């Protein structure tokens, strides 16, 4: 028996054990002949092919079933598996049933801590600590199959690191029945296709975290790559059972998309909301000292802090314009941006250079530790976050948690945060003067500022523990009917 025959034999054995029939391709074929249900067809296709079938491949198999019957279809697929070559040909499988399979593909392979990665890490870490019965997976490098994590990858949930050249191993996971959690935004065509394929199995319930629909509804602020891929991700989400959005505003967007898509789908996902958490540890003395050094913060001059990556959606050109107006009017403050350069920010950097040449008190920090970020919030008199469009608006929450008032956009998720406990001044981010006015009021109106600080300090914190627990119950435990409330 060669290597491929042995591998296919293992898959037959695993599926036979799962179906509780004798360990023989003919027995599997007879089972599919007797019960040609979509669920059985899907599991057979996935198990014998050692991959997650695309919806299209699944559709072909279902047609084969109708014309040729279960036995012939099964034997043909078994024959195909024996003729495979390459990595997939020698894969072995583990069939997983009635467990929660959690996809953390990107998060365990990157050292970046973008918003999405932060949510995934904080959530999965807590699910792990509280002993949730789940299996963490990522996709094999050929983009066809799921596998469990290596020890390094598993550790990477807690300790972000860059993972170069991951080794897949031979064993892949076939989720036959249960819940599949898509924690990340899927930005690749191949992965969207496979996610959709998972949703095609009637025995698998796909649940996803819904971050936002920015690439669909604000394409002018999205980079070209993501605007191209995002509809494919939405397509895959169409076969999900539920999407749990990170804010009411994000939920509104997903409901809008669902209505766009509803007329051509036999079913559409349910959409619920579990508002995101934010935690930020107060800065140490050393961090505060760092802030003075790096940001040039001083007690004599109010600090206006802007946190966020430099990309058009964050509206930093408008902040610069507002600052110019205020400086020109003689309002004294130091302006500090903390955030990485993303895309479309050439003009921002040009203007910063020019303002610095003119001696304006302005600093741009492109990389900051958590401690420095916390110190900056603490030192700041006000945080400014007039984003044009956000699924959540993390800097708004973080600033408020450390007792610093915010000036932010008067709609969507940002307004939602301010409405839930105060501490902020709402402005129109499409109007530079409105932003300038908001900043001026906080800087110059002491009564207002004190009220905002008091409100910020008395806000009830929302912890990651809360978020992780609620998300698990909405994604995994709740009956479907209660999700779309």
């Amino acid at each position, binding site marked *: 028996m060669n290597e491929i025959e042995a591998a296919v034999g293992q898959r037959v054995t695993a599926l036979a054990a799962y179906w509780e029939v004798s360990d023989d391709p003919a027995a599997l074929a007879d089972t599919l002949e007797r019960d040609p249900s979509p669920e059985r067809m899907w599991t057979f296709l996935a198990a014998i092919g050692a991959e997650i079938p695309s919806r299209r491949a699944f559709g072909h198999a279902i047609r084969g079933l109708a014309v040729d019957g279960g036995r012939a279809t099964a034997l043909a697929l078994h024959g195909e598996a024996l003729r495979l070559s390459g990595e997939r040909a020698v894969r072995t499988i583990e069939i997983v049933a009635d467990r929660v399979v959690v996809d953390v593909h990107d998060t365990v392979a990157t050292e970046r801590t973008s918003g999405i990665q932060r949510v995934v890490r904080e959530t999965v870490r807590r699910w792990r600590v509280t002993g949730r019965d789940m299996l963490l997976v990522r996709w094999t490098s050929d983009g066809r199959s799921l596998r469990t994590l290596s020890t390094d990858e598993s550790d990477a949930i807690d300790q972000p690191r860059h993972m170069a050249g991951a080794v897949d191993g031979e064993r892949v996971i076939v989720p036959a029945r249960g819940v599949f959690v898509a924690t990340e935004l899927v930005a690749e065509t191949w992965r969207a296709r496979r996610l959709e394929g998972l949703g095609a199995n009637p025995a698998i319930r796909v649940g996803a975290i819904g971050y936002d629909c920015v690439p669909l509804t604000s*394409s002018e602020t999205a980079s070209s790559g993501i*605007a191209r891929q995002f509809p*494919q991700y939405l*397509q895959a989400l169409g076969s999900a059972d539920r999407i749990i959005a990170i804010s009411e*505003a994000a939920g509104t967007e997903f*409901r809008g*998309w669902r209505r766009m898509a509803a007329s*051509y789908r036999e079913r559409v996902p349910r959409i619920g909301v579990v508002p995101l958490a934010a935690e930020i540890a107060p800065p140490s003395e050393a961090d505060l000292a760092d802030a003075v050094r790096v940001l040039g913060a001083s007690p004599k001059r109010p600090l206006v802090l802007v946190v966020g990556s430099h990309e058009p959606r964050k509206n930093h050109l408008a902040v610069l314009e507002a600052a110019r107006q205020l400086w020109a009017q003689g309002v004294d403050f130091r302006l500090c941006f903390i955030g990485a350069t993303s895309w479309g920010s050439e003009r921002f950097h040009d203007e910063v250079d020019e303002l610095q040449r003119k001696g304006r008190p302005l600093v741009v920090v492109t990389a900051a530790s958590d401690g420095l970020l916390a110190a900056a919030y603490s030192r700041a008199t006000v945080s400014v976050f007039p984003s044009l*469009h956000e699924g959540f608006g993390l800097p708004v929450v973080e600033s408020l948690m450390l007792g610093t008032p915010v000036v932010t956009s008067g709609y969507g998720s940002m307004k939602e945060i301010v409405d839930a406990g105060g501490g902020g001044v709402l402005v129109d*981010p499409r109007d530079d003067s409105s932003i300038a006015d908001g900043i001026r009021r906080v800087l110059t109106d002491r009564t207002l500022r004190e009220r905002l600080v008091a409100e910020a300090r008395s806000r009830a914190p929302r912890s990651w523990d809360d978020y992780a627990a609620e998300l698990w119950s909405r994604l995994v435990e709740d009956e479907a009917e209660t999700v779309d409330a």
Partner: protein
Amino acid sequence: MTGADASASHRALLDRLNEVAPELVADARRQSAVGDVALLAREVLTAVRDGGELAGYWLAYVAFAAAFPTEPQLDGFRRAIHLASESDLVTDALASIEIAHRTHRRSTRTIRILRDEILVDVGFSATHVHNTGIQRVVRSVLPRWSAAGHPFTLLAWTADDAGYREPNGVEQARVLSWGADGGAHTADSPDDALLVPWRSRIFLPEVPQYEQCRLLACVAASGAADIDLIGYDVIPITSADTVMAAESERFAIYLDVVKRSRAVHAISDTVRDEFAGFVGALSAQGLPGPVVNGVSLAVDVPAAARAVAAASVGTAELPTMVCLGSHEPRKNQEAVLFAAERLHREGRRFRLVFVGGGSRRAYAGFDRRLALLRSRGMNVESARRMGDDELWALIGSSRFSVFVSLHEGFGLPVAESLALGIPVLTSSHGSMHEIAGHGGCVEVDPRDDEAILDGMRALLTDDALHERLASEAAAIAPRTWDDYARLLWDGVSEGRRR
């Protein structure tokens, strides 16, 4: 740059400033600056800054740049003006355009303001002889508006997408009197004036090109003009697996125009709901979005078509099913073929004819499959294209038509088959379901192979059913292009004095 060039571009700038100044600058101040480009430029910028209205900045930008701005370009211009000292006002404003829009600064182009008009963007139909879906709508509606004496002005785009221009005679004819002569491709001349919408309504019966969408979004966002458009479908977003990724991206950019528009006139109630979904998502970014109306498209087959079809009834040797539509996964031809194959295995006798073009990639496999099935004795064929008479005769001679698309904005083949008196097997959702509501159809879930098979068998074998549906089809009074054009004009001209 030679001295002569410089003076030509200088003169052109003065001309452009003269064109916009009456809209922006008070008479007295304007007259004191007459003929002096530097003085007039200053007056325009000062007036715009004092007025504080975004539309004013937009118009000034067009005058200085001889091109429409994108939103970031307009923001840069506005902020530069806001910031400039009195002495540097003109220099700084020009410098900001220089950064954003280098190529247009020295343009010798002139501009002409179109104020308080209804302007129709026919950028594609005017410059192309292509004539399917959208172009047919354009070429059916606008001649009727013209005949009814509705006042509107046609617009095309300059070759460099700087902005609008007037379509030339051939181009106008291509839109207003299509059919006489398609004519050769045309291009704009460099001497064309840029046409500048101002306090006007722009109507988009086409989906504009990628670069144009950014400019149109800015026109609408600034308030220089408002925008109405026909909503055809949202297929590139909600059936992304059936289109190229680049098409999805292009459509997402088009949605940026939709988001800023005044009204969407959707071609079916289904499409109205789809756009309403998009509008519903906009509150997350603080935008109200357009109002969305449903104006169902016309289905008007020519009298000649009815005559040919009627004369062909009963001429087929075998009961014939016809399946119309381009070859692409969305149209679901594979499911139709699959059902027909099973019907053939059941021993039913029939003929199946597919009519429709497509990419080589789309139908290469399909053709091989057809050849195989023919070799097994199944009567099936596929025609890429067909003359009108031949097509009408084929439909007229068919027992029924099959159109089980996964997603359509309208589903024209369903409506056209019905208009020719032929029953249709179609999809039980979306716009096709909407059309089927008028009668003459068997509806099935297009993703359910069994349902398609059952529906096909019923239409093929159940004579009572067939007869009932055929008489229902004959009784449908299709919406005419006259009706559609009238309803659309009412919608597009809404709220404008004329």
